[in-house]
């Protein structure tokens, strides 16, 4: 019987997984857009994005647009790789039932 894969705990969190999935489909996204899509609170969203940033899965860029601060997030190569591996592990765990 083959060894079952471990799920990456950083990716496994619901909100973090949603954020990585969202970011995988866009070039970069503003904090406010991510908040609208996930309907998470500012505090929770900020905390989970920080965890992803610390893991090297997302990169942050801050800039000013019409004198207003804007925080942009994008998925990194490592983040994309982690998400791909997570999906593969999920599929392996669920087996032929999916």
């Amino acid at each position: 019987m083959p060894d079952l894969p471990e799920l990456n705990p950083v990716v496994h969190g619901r909100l973090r997984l949603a954020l990585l999935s969202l970011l995988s489909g866009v070039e970069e996204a503003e904090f406010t857009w991510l908040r609208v899509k996930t309907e998470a609170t500012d505090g929770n969203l900020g905390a989970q994005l920080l965890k992803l940033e610390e893991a090297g899965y997302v990169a942050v860029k801050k800039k000013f647009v019409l004198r207003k601060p804007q925080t942009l997030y994008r998925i990194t190569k490592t983040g994309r790789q982690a998400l791909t591996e997570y999906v593969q592990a999920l599929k392996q765990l669920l087996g032929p039932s999916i």
Partner: protein
Amino acid sequence: MPNTTEQELRERLDLIESMIGEGRRSIESWGWAFVLWGVAYYLAIAWSEWSHSVWAWPVTALIAVAVTVVVASLKAGNHPGTTLGRAIGSIWIALGVSMFLLFLALGVSGRLTDQHLFVAVMSAILGLANGASALILRWKIQFSCAVVWWVVAVATCFATDPQSRILFLVAIFLCQVLFGIYSHIAEGQQRKRRSPIHA
């Protein structure tokens, strides 16, 4: 992850799919543009029938372009750019420029005298854009719109004048007005279905 149940794993997989699907939903939010252009086509047809002016289509198209740009920039807000969005957008922008230049040149030069040719070329180009978008998005409803346009492009070559006109009006209704309304409703329903995601 020893305590993770199968149901939880399935939920994770669904979550990934639904979040990645947000890219597609941002395309569906263009339903209003289909309706707008459908109305613009009807206005241009009515104007050209009434006055036989060669400017009916170019002027209506320019006004529709201006309205599209204004509404799109207002709706865009903080929406992020996607490669998919840029690919689809490129198809429609290239279609708009091609149709505008071609029909303006044909109209001004006095060579746009055959209604059948006009309907056939316009339907074929609209079929091309809808078909390309549908294949990229794997969107069956939009692909059926492309099929309708292609059928009209071929059928108008063999139809009488009134038949060709009716075919064109029906295709505009189905593939612009009705499809636009459907996309708009679909987007609204998907927004309602979404629930907050917790950590």
